[in-house]
């Protein structure tokens, strides 16, 4: 602690010196926006006797000028009569009725220190760090739990408030270990930061600190429970957001501790988020433990590709290595959470990577060759087959640019058999409303009845599931589910397991119909697993008739949704990656796999020439003749469209492995070698080309709704639904693609969390 004290003293003198010299300059206070960041720290001796300090206080100094809300927040007051006026540090602010004192202070630009309060969780009010002084109140009040009342005079910067914070800090640190130098939270710890800003410079506690036994929460979350300050954020997160009641508070007083009641792992696919919300180092990332300090890391704002949600992430890297993945705020998509697969798949980026172009020799072994040789072999093989025998398959993780180039190249070769795995052999790509989540992910919160058809959102898209869970908690919305028995973390009715139930609902014979028909905003969510079924047209037309009866598609609400499985699916359908022939694979002689690993290559003729272009030595490699190494999502700039039709892009965080190249560049080079030159040479050129196919893919970070095609008349299908039950689309949540299958952490998760 000696070092900490020194640092504290040094910062104080420098702060005081800076501000005192600055104040002498006129206009400084209003001119410099950084002024708000400087917190006044009152030297401690006066605070040991607050009564004396208040008594001897000189006449009130002029209040500081009004500040802008914390984080640039804006508040919209719907009815002006519902606004109340409160005074924060002497300045009036208008806030809507029902806001807490803490929120009012935030609007007034005062950031109140807090530990237990989190704006997405319920209010606990147990850490007492947010104490402020309110005029005419005998004691300081916990601002997070106190509603703002009209005319309230809140003081956040008075000696009483400061004394209160200092006292709370002293109590919190009493039982908190002094292991900051070996704590992974160090550098991004709320307790560390706030004790520097608001704490005392010494403690008076001389007894033994208490210690708590660590809990085993599984392979993802490391616990050091002695560091816990009992803020209960993790307990509230687990019950309210993740929807599992695994964590809880045990014991009372100094024996109080967080635990799982009985020895049990945390069985949630969102469990990694407790690492972010824990204000101290009690819950940290197990795979990241002792790997890096947060100030050594370079953050790159990117997009997750392990499912179709497109969660916004920050890739933290050090040198050429991805060290961790953390969420980024996006209210419309993932709020501030990400799934465990998104967060912990990164170690798969370092394993099983393809780093050199390779050709399979006559002995069946791969030999590293130069790019020139590898491309020449591929071009030669492509020339020896007829155009109808050429097939291209894009993988789950492909970006829009590379799929565009793949399609253009194969079209130029004369083949029309290009598709993306997961979309089935007869995809409906004409109308965007037919494969997108039309009510948008955040729009699901408006729904009052959900009908899930052949989809298990908990494993297919945990962030969408979290939205449904949130809606159900808030509005008690009803959920009906048709599909194989599955785990849900909210109340639901299992209506049936196959098309027969769907038929009953369409004909109005099912008891769930009454709920569906009386709903104001019914949301029907169809799983993309149905795309692979032979009778999918019939199923979709039945679902459309249900939507019509339930009035789910109107001008103000489109509740007919498709939940996609993979990051590449939406963009592939937008770009029109549709196979011409349903049996293309059975007759293929030249197959171009662009990261496609889950294609059934058994059907392929044995003399077919297979090119595998991808970043991982996964399933697709076993059958391939040539390997072309490409870059993974963390190493390239690529456009992805998520399941609701929002276009986002990844950015390169780390350099590529070995001699790998970006997918689109490899295909462009191949076009040159095979004499079918494509007329673009830059990423910008590819995007210009995309804008003539699907212009929504160049509108970055925007969601282009399919509002027109939703109402378009479609030809009726002659298909009949089969009796076959709906299947499970995702068998193992933790391992769905090449990256997650290569990941050791994901393997540990599958082993320990999936065993029943």
């Amino acid at each position, binding site marked *: 602690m000696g070092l900490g004290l020194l640092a504290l003293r040094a910062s104080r003198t420098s702060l005081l010196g800076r501000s005192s010299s600055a104040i002498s300059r006129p206009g400084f206070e209003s001119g410099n926006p950084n002024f708000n960041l400087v917190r006044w720290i009152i030297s401690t001796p006066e605070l040991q006797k607050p009564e004396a300090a208040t008594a001897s206080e000189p006449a009130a100094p002029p209040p500081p000028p009004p500040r802008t809300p914390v984080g640039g927040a804006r508040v919209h007051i719907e009815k002006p009569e519902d606004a109340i006026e409160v005074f924060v540090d002497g300045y009036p602010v208008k806030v809507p009725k029902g806001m807490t004192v803490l929120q009012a202070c935030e609007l007034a630009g005062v950031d109140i220190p807090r530990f237990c309060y989190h704006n997405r969780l319920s209010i606990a009010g147990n850490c007492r760090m947010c104490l402020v002084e309110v005029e005419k109140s005998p004691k300081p009040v916990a601002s997070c739990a106190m509603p703002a009342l009209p005319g309230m005079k809140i003081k956040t910067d008075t000696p009483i408030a400061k004394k209160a914070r200092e006292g709370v800090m002293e109590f919190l640190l009493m039982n908190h270990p002094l292991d900051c130098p070996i704590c992974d939270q160090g550098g991004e710890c709320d307790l560390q930061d706030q004790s520097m800003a608001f704490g005392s410079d010494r403690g008076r506690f001389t007894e033994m600190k208490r210690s708590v036994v660590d809990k085993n929460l599984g392979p993802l979350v490391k616990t050091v429970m002695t560091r816990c300050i009992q803020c209960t954020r993790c307990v509230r997160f687990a019950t309210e957001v993740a929807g599992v009641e695994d964590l809880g508070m045990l014991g009372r007083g100094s024996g109080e501790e967080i635990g799982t009641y009985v020895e049990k792992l945390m069985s949630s696919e969102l469990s990694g988020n407790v690492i972010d919300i824990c204000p101290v180092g009690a819950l940290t990332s197990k795979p990241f433990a002792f790997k890096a300090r947060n100030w050594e890391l370079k953050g790159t704002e990117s997009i997750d590709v392990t499912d179709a949600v497109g969660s916004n992430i920050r890739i933290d890297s050090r040198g050429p290595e991805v060290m961790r993945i953390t969420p980024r705020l996006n209210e419309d998509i993932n709020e501030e959470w990400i799934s465990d697969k998104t967060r912990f798949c990164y170690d798969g980026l370092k394993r099983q990577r393809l780093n050199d172009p390779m050709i399979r020799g006559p002995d069946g072994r791969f030999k590293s060759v130069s790019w020139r040789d590898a491309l020449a072999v591929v071009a030669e093989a492509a020339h020896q087959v007829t155009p109808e025998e050429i097939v291209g398959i894009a993988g789950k993780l492909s970006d829009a640019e590379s799929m565009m180039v793949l399609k253009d190249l194969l079209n130029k070769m004369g083949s029309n058999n290009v598709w993306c795995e997961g979309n089935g052999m007869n995809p409906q*790509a004409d109308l*965007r409303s037919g494969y997108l989540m039309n009510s948008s992910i955040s729009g699901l919160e408006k729904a009052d009845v959900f009908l899930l058809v052949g989809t298990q959102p908990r494993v297919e898209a945990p962030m969408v599931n979290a939205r449904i869970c949130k809606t159900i908690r808030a509005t008690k919305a009803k959920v009906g589910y048709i599909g194989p028995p599955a785990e849900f973390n909210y109340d639901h009715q299992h209506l049936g397991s196959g098309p027969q139930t769907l038929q009953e609902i369409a004909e109005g014979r099912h008891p769930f119909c009454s709920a569906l028909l009386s709903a104001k905003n019914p949301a029907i969510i169809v799983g993309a697993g149905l795309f692979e079924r032979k009778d999918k047209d019939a199923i979709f037309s039945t679902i459309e008739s249900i939507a019509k009866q339930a009035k789910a598609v109107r001008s103000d609400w489109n509740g007919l949704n498709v939940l996609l499985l993979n990051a590449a699916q939406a963009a592939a359908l937008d770009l029109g990656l549709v196979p*011409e022939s349903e049996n293309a694979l059975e007759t293929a002689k030249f197959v171009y796999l662009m990261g496609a690993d889950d294609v059934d290559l058994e059907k392929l003729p044995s003399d077919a020439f297979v090119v595998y272009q991808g970043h991982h030595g996964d399933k697709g490699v076993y059958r391939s003749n040539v390997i072309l190494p490409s870059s993974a999502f963390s190493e390239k700039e690529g456009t992805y469209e998520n399941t609701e039709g929002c276009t986002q892009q990844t950015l390169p965080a780390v350099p590529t492995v070995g001699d790998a190249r970006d997918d689109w560049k490899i295909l462009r080079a191949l076009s040159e070698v095979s004499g079918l030159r494509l007329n673009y040479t830059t990423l910008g050129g590819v995007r210009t080309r995309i804008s*003539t*196919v*699907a212009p929504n893919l160049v509108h970055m970070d925007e969601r*282009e709704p399919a509002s027109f095609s939703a109402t378009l008349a479609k030809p009726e299908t002659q298909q009949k639904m089969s009796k076959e039950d709906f299947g499970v689309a995702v068998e193992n949540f933790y391992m769905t693609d090449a990256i997650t299958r290569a990941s050791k952490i994901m393997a540990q998760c599958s082993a320990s969390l999936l065993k029943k």
Partner: protein
Amino acid sequence: MAWRGQLSKNLKELRVLFCQSSPASAQTREFVQKNYKDLKTLNPKLPILIRECSGVEPQLWARFDMGVERGFYLEGLTETQIEKVLEEVTKAGATFKG
């Protein structure tokens, strides 16, 4: 109207791009609204990609064999003129096949 059935024979892909709300795309939206069902019924295997995106000019793109594409801006054209464009494209496609 016999050419409508020829669409899938001469074309590999038909794309209609327009804005969901702009008045410049109104005629194109109207054309798609009235003709999509008929065209799709006659050419069930042909991808007729309807791509809506705010702010784009209405366009019609046809892809023929071997990756050859032709594009037309439809702004200012009436429904009948758009139909004429499509008919010409379909007939042009026949020459590409040879």
